[in-house]
């Protein structure tokens, strides 16, 4: 297609630009999340994530907490603002410059840095751009007096959020639980669906058409509908809330799509190959395992990705079918109910949690992407 003579290069440009715009639109929210996951809560609410890589002017409050010295009836506090208790942590990363200061919260940048400010009542405050200050008071302060200042804040990123999320109590356990739920809940429905799809595609038996129609019909059953009755059922047969229960649940919910996709794919396999294997003496089971299954790999992979993403990100099913005890929590539940509950306002933690939970699916997706496309091609284009 690139080879067509006389193609206008303007068009190519237009295409490139529109794709770039689209990709950016798609990417921006995620980038925002990623950047925010490296910032702490106060930074996030102080400046937009898009400003994170730049220095910003921010206002701080601290207390002149250095020792008070008496000199000729005046009380003098001297020290460096950046070293005071309240803000020391914010400037641990590096040097900064103060541009203005003040002594009231209402007007925190009243005086330019480097000058002397007469605060009335005999109080005099001098703050140098490098942070050195001198506070002269006529009386002994009851508590260290407030200094407000505005300073250039260098960009700062922290891994604290990741540390918090990853080392949260039982997070490792939650990760393992998620795996324990996800892997069988991906493989079992694929296996079951593959057998069924094979039967529906290549075996002749009465009622086949009806079954196919039923599978398609069940595609649209709302999941929520099934939760309560099934939980009761599990209860009645003694499975209760357990891994077995959640595998079965995910299997049931994932099956219609799996059977549908896989059957579509398998029907498209060359009839000759199947027959050839029959002539070669393969039983249906051998035929399925040794010929059909390997040949359906792209479709299997495509569905596996969907099912994996679905079970990995699932919150509702996990909450219903797994016990609420800590040792049975999966990551989504852990994050939603445990981490976010106590830190709901902490955007940084939220962002990190979201990122941690998409990391594995992303890896899976990028690893299997090739098959996804191929599998879908054969499965849906008919």
């Amino acid at each position: 297609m690139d080879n067509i003579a006389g193609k206008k290069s303007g068009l190519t440009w237009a295409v490139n630009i529109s794709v770039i715009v689209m990709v950016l639109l798609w990417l921006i929210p995620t980038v925002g999340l990623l950047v925010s996951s490296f910032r702490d809560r106060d930074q996030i609410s102080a400046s937009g994530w898009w400003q994170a890589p730049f220095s910003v002017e921010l206002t701080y409050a601290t207390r002149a907490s250095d020792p008070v010295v008496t000199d000729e009836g005046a009380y003098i506090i001297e020290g460096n603002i950046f070293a005071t208790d309240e803000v020391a942590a914010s400037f641990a990363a590096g040097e900064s410059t103060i541009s203005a200061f003040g002594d009231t919260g209402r007007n925190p940048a009243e005086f330019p840095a480097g000058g002397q400010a007469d605060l009335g009542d005999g109080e005099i405050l001098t703050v140098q751009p490098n942070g050195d200050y001198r506070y002269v008071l006529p009386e002994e302060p009851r508590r260290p007096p407030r200094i407000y200042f505005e300073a250039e804040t260098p960009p700062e990123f922290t891994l604290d959020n990741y540390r918090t999320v990853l080392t949260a109590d039982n997070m490792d356990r939650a990760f393992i639980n998620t795996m324990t739920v996800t892997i069988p809940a991906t493989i079992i429905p694929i296996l079951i669906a593959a057998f069924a799809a094979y039967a529906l595609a290549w075996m002749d038996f009465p009622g086949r058409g009806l079954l196919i129609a039923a599978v398609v019909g069940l595609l649209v059953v709302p999941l929520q509908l099934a939760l309560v009755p099934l939980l009761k059922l599990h209860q009645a047969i003694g499975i209760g809330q357990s891994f077995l229960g959640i595998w079965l649940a995910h299997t049931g919910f994932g099956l219609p799509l799996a059977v549908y996709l896989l059957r579509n794919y398998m029907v498209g396999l060359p009839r000759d190959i199947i027959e050839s294997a029959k002539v070669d003496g393969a039983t249906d089971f051998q035929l399925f395992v040794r010929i059909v299954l390997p040949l359906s790999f792209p479709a299997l992979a495509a569905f596996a990705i969907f099912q994996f993403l679905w079970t990995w990100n699932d919150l509702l099913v996990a909450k219903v079918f797994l016990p609420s005890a800590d040792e049975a929590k999966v990551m989504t539940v852990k994050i939603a109910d445990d981490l976010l509950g106590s830190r709901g306002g902490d955007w940084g933690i939220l962002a990190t949690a979201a990122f941690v939970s998409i990391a594995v699916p992303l890896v899976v997706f990028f690893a299997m992407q090739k098959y996804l496309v191929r599998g879908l091609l054969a499965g849906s284009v008919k």
Partner: protein
Amino acid sequence: QNLEFEPGSGEFNWDSFDQFAGQYDLSGQSIEITGPWTGLDSDLFTSVTAYFEEATGATVNYSGSDSFEQDIVISTEADSAPNIAVFPQPGLASDLASRGELTPLGEETADWIRENYAAGDSWVDLATFAGPDGEEQLYVFPYKIDVKSIVWYVPEAFEEMGYEIPETMEELKDLTQQIVDDGGTPWCIGLGSGAATGWPATDWVEDMMLRTQPPEVYDQWVTNEIPFDDPAVVNAIEEYGWFSRNDDFVSGGAEAVASTDFRDAPSGLFQFPPECYMHKQATFIPTFFPEGTEVGLDVDFFYFPAYEEQDLGRPVLGAGTMFAITNDSEAAQAFVEFLKTPIAHEIWMAQSGFLTPYADANPAVFPSDVQRNLNQILTEATTFRFDASDLMPGEIGAGAFWTGMVDYQTGAGAEDVTGQIQDRWEQIQ
């Protein structure tokens, strides 16, 4: 298990601990507890259970969940309920009790509460529900109380502007106007809370109810003896609206109130210049203050005052968590007994965020005056009422009331909103 406070140290009531330890030996047994506490609260609670473990030799497994209400319903349905569930709302516990999922705690516990808790009768009333057979019994044990009638402020900001702590509602309203006149914004209010968006407004309305109506009306409101759209309720909502629906009074304007997350809302107090001067919220909120904020120094609170002219005393709105046995066992019973010991209260008191009406718990163990003052608000209350929305049926208190308040906040009329809530209530009766 490492114990937070060395037995024998401090002003704790160690006798009660020793005595309890002497009574029980539950080695090898374990109890499962689920509750709404996560994060820091969950750590604090486990610091309490550590003493139970120490005393009895049993193991306590606590797991907290933000969606505890859903989880407990599911797990009782699935018959995999924990031994003990900690209910943040009596409503849900009453539901479960009527379905027979809870074990009654017995008359003797009821008597104990009546005797030992300040305003004991009201606590027993709160904790008594109809069982599956319709018989009224005590099913839950209140432990850990939150006071909601509290306004947070930054003392230095007040000092700078020369504002005084208002003693009456009239003064509070004047101060609000004053701040606006001075070019500031008085309030930070945030109703956002995901699926539960709207609940902070219900606290306002309840506080206003207690400040405009006698407690009996409040009780009638809770049980729908007066309709939800009664003029008393409409009036209370409009009282709230006086504060929240005035663009000048609230940070970000009236519209922002509905969508600001309640956890983000207090941050306005700590900006320079301040984005607002006051924030009404329950005692748990300091968790969401910026890191390093010291309560008492950087931030403080005052009692959300009552109208001088109404002469309704000092009503206090509160909430609390209720322990219920969802899966009976010896250890579970023992744990309820443990909650009756002063030490079970003091351990948490001595750390943070814990208030109790238990008279025998020694206030001296509070780590700060702030805590003591808070507890004092609780104990000095002339009227104490439990959060109404927690007492109403779930569809109302944790549904229609919330969304109704959001609608009101975003412009709907108070009559319309209350009318709809009342309709909804009638439907479920």
